[in-house]
């Protein structure tokens, strides 16, 4: 499997979601990410992008920068914004045991990012918030 190193950037607006998902899916397919893991990745990517669209640029429009790369047998997705410093991973998990009527609307996005990736980390670098997600090619860990 050839190494992948692809980048794209787009306006941080929901209208770009499909374009972003197609880009990541194409990279994940070339990498050979297991179908179930790819599905998890795409949900996590949507959650991260939607967070940037919703919160990163309260005063106007900004961009999201995306990269897909390989590190050995892992797929590495990074998404960056130029908004104020904010670590989305600092948010608490929602209470997923509550009944329908008591459920908070929201808070699930970051939870999905945590649950659907093998590793996720945040760093602030050159005025950018960067969220990095790593997924092994297969669930069982075999190449």
């Amino acid at each position, binding site marked *: 499997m050839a190494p992948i190193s692809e980048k794209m950037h787009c306006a941080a607006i929901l209208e770009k979601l499909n374009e972003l998902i197609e880009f990541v899916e194409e990279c994940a397919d070339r990498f050979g990410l297991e179908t179930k893991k790819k599905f998890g990745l795409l949900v996590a990517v949507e959650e991260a992008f939607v967070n940037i669209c919703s919160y990163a640029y309260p005063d106007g429009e900004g961009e999201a920068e995306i990269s897909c790369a390989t590190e050995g047998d892992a797929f590495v997705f990074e998404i960056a914004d130029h908004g104020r410093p904010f670590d989305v991973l600092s948010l608490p998990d929602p209470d997923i045991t509550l009944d329908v*009527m008591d459920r908070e609307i929201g808070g699930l996005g970051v939870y999905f990012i945590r649950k659907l990736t093998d590793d996720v980390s945040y760093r602030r670098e050159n005025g950018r918030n960067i969220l990095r997600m790593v997924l092994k090619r297969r669930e069982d860990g075999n190449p």
Partner: protein
Amino acid sequence: MEIQTKKEANATVVTITGRLDAVTAPVYEKAVIELITAGELKLIVDFDSLDYISSAGLRGLLVTAKQLKGKGGQVRCANVKGTVKEVFDISGFGSIFQMDDSVADSLAKLA
């Protein structure tokens, strides 16, 4: 995403096809809230042709379920499977929504 609604004797079946994500969830919410506003109290959401759901999609389901419950109505989810089911399960939604293996099952339980 496409939404189809079909009135059955004791409920309305809402069939969603494609992706329920941050872009399409508001369309789903609007369509279902219209049904509720028009007086429908029993809904069955058919997930058989749904390929993808994110937290925004679940939020859409939750908003409409709360509205229905507030009016004394009910919603049941039919044919939640595969990767969509996985998202339901890890979010805990699999246990807070009434899930059935088929639309016929849902209809029987609402009868």
